[in-house]
């Protein structure tokens, strides 16, 4: 198993205000910083921003598309929100293998994860990990 084999391909997502509004409805997070351009204009961000958990959903999608059920059963994610994601932003979500810890027949594989905008600005940084079988590596590829 090489690092290249375990690095999920990057995921590119475009944020829209309509998507933010859908996420606000489903999450119940109706904070006007996400929904009200007038209010958002009074904040340091100047305009509406995406929910942090929406971006977390993008990272989880990346890991799910690469590792399938293994991510759902054993995934761990620790992220810090570094900058706002605005409507119209094109986000690139990436995960790079950083370490492997043996668990006998399995191993916990650790990744550095990031989400950057079209200007390479940091939106989210952090770490992810999950447990994979050493033999099968529980391969799952959506792509």
């Amino acid at each position, binding site marked *: 198993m090489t690092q290249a084999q375990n690095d999920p391909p990057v995921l590119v*997502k475009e944020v829209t205000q309509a*998507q933010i509004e859908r996420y606000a409805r489903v999450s119940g997070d109706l*904070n006007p910083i996400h929904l009200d351009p007038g209010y958002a204009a009074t904040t340091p961000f100047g305009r509406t921003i995406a929910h942090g*958990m929406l971006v977390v*959903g993008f990272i989880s999608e990346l890991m*799910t598309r690469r590792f399938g059920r293994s991510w759902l059963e054993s995934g761990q994610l*620790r992220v810090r929100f570094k900058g706002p994601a605005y409507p119209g932003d094109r986000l690139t979500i990436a995960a790079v293998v950083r370490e492997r810890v043996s668990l006998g027949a399995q191993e916990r594989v650790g990744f550095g994860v990031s989400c950057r905008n079209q200007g390479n600005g940091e939106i989210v940084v952090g770490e992810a990990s999950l447990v994979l079988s050493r033999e099968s590596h529980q391969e799952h590829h*959506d792509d």
Partner: protein
Amino acid sequence: MPPVERRLTREAVAEYIRAVEDASTIYQTSDLVPPTVLGTLALGVILEHLRIPPGTLHGSQDLEFKGVAHVGQSVTCSGRVVQNQLRGGSRFIAVESIVSAGDGGVLLRSRCLIIVPAEA
């Protein structure tokens, strides 16, 4: 904060997947629920309980998936404030949450840091 029970209805899970535009095939071919649905639920319960004011920001988020959730399942979310600190004119509140299945098995452990603006 008191435990809150929610049912992961097919409609609500589908609406979440549409909202985040998650194209993972596993959700199209099974009744598995994206684990971030549970994270979203946990955060929603926190925000509702704490009556978070406008302008509150999300500083960090930890999620630990302990088991899969299925469409139609009922889950219980409980949480507790583990940090409540005024710093630099903002209030930093950390909350740890657990989302459990009906049999008590833990599905998700989470910790979030929210930052409440000074004037709130």
